[in-house]
């Protein structure tokens, strides 16, 4: 049972890190629906680099670097070119899905390295995730940087007038978000499940995206949601731990996705909608083009 608990925390951590990345971007008004693509890239490159060099550190750095690059690309499409952010995000997802399938295929199979040692019986990344949540909450609500990020996401033209550089802030947020998503992917491929297979994420990035909508852009709620989904995911892989014999294993695999739908549906309650509407960054998904 303890093993199950630890694995659930591992899974939650990956949801948390990726979703925090998405949350930072969204707070600045940049919607990135390509989370899954960036995670796939981070996971695949992290896996390849770690296997080639034998160094976990380099693997994680590679994951973070490709994440930053894709965050930059998304920033370029959505900030500089002022294009449709959904189109760009979908592009990044499909590019990630397509290219990693081809690039990673020769590496199909286990990583073949010693496991990363645990800290106090838990994965070290759990503490990283926890620190990230607290840090993000602190920066967003207590610092001038956080105020800048939020103002750019709420009302970019007002922010610009008050001296905030909209484009720069959005770029930084998008890149930071990308780095975290790439890192989350690397944690998946190097620690949670160190076996490469094509399109192995099977929806983690999209659940992370849903978590951000559900969290009302609050890192603490986001963490709670990640814990719920991490546990659910783990349960869907090992249903025999709780309800042996009930349903086929394939039915269990649909459960996390079904619960996501139910959660999204529950957001339709009036109570939730008013709060959600108030918390939503007003300029989310809208390009900001300076008047010339």
């Amino acid at each position, binding site marked *: 049972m303890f093993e199950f608990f630890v694995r659930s925390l591992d899974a939650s951590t990956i949801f948390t890190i990726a979703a925090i990345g998405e949350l930072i971007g969204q707070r600045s008004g940049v919607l990135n*629906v390509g989370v899954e693509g960036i995670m796939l890239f981070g996971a695949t490159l992290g896996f390849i680099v770690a296997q080639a060099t034998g160094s976990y550190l380099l693997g994680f750095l590679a994951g973070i670097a490709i994440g930053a690059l894709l965050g930059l690309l998304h920033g370029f*499409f959505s900030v500089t*070119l*002022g*294009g*449709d952010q*959904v*189109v*760009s995000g*979908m*592009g*990044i997802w*499909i*590019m*990630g*899905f*397509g*290219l990693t*399938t*081809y*690039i990673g*295929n*020769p590496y199909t199979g286990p990583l073949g390295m010693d496991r990363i040692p645990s800290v106090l019986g838990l994965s070290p990344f759990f503490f990283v995730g926890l620190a990230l949540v607290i840090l993000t909450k602190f920066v967003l609500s207590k610092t001038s940087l956080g105020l800048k990020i939020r103002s750019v996401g709420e009302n970019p033209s007002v922010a610009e007038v008050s001296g905030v550089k909209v484009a720069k802030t959005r770029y930084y947020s998008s890149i930071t978000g990308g780095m975290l998503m790439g890192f989350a992917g690397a944690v998946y491929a190097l620690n949670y499940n160190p076996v490469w297979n*094509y*399109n192995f994420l*099977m*929806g983690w990035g*999209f659940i992370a*995206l*849903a978590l951000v*909508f559900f969290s009302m852009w609050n890192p603490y709620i986001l963490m709670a949601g990640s814990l719920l989904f991490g546990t659910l995911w783990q349960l869907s892989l090992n249903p025999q731990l709780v309800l042996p014999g009930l349903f*086929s*294993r*394939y*039915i269990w*695999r*649909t459960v996390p*996705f*079904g619960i*996501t*739908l139910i959660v*999204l*549906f529950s*957001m*339709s309650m009036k109570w939730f*909608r008013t709060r959600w509407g108030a918390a939503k960054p007003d300029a989310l998904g809208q390009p900001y083009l300076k008047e010339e």
Partner: protein
Amino acid sequence: MRIAGYKLTLAKRETLSGLQASMISVLAVLTALLLFSLIFIQADVNPLEAYKEIFDYAFFNSYGLPLTINRFIFLLLSTCAFIIPFRAGLWNIGMTGQLYAGSLSAFAVMYAFGVKDAKSAEYPALIIIPLMILAAALGAMIIASIAGYLRGKYNVNEIVVTMMLNFITFWLVSFMIKDGGLFMNPGGRGESFELPASLYAPLYKGVPFTLIFALGFAFFLHWLFAKTKLGYQIRAYGENPTGAEYAGISTVRIPLLVFIMGGALAGLAGYHYFAAVPGVYKIARSYAFLGDLAFYGIICGLIAQANPIAAIPVALLFGGLTNGGRFVQGKMHLGFGIDYALLGVLMITLVAFQFFYRYQFALTKAEKESPDV
């Protein structure tokens, strides 16, 4: 930028004619294919030779051409399934889930007629095949309508919903065809039972009759968008949902309706590939591949700029490219997933080219300036 006395500037487009729009698409595809040569070069293959092999196999080979046509039908249906909601400004990335739901429903009809246990019996095809097609469309519609309803009624992001439905139906198919599921092949190979020969879809010169559906719906949609009130309402909603509401267009009905229509077409794509393509006639173990292929519907839809008629040549091209890609992968010993890589390169190139819908390069004669010192 200045080139030999001419000045190259970036100017905002005032209008975008149909010809210009199609030029952008053609350029985007060419650029993507050019970029994709890098992957061939990296694999020590001459790109020109590779493309020649791809096109030769896809369009001029007696084995390759029928496969291309089957993929073309599948892609055209998937593309139309994407285009209908896209005209209303909504993203249907759930073609995968919808086609799984459609094929499961079609197999459920056969199961109800006892096909699983008596494969060699003669069945009344004239009754069962139309029922299978109806069931495929209906099953997919139901799955798709969830996304449309949640979007219309509660403004829930349709991308997340359709994606969740993709994964749910993916596992449902596994549930039905593996581990003793209802549709499992009695031989137990983790695939579905096979169609009896009497229920094979009618062929004309080796081409399944589903071709009529694919082409028919493409033309029907063109007519729907251009000439009917509903088409107008869909377009109006796509351009400005709030404005459409003021004009008396229901913001609940339109999203629901576009997803239902899109879903039905994706369901037909599912029927086509699992029950009408010669040599398949079952839900194979590797059914995930067709689900992935449906994502090409997004790309074809974007290249065709949501124009169902333009989607016809685009779907034919990509039916050929993916089919030929698989072939050269085997012939030239390339790594698995060439067609997936092409999918990725195309998509990101397209995204970059979106820019030219709003801007254009203008070449003007530079005014005489004093030369730089």
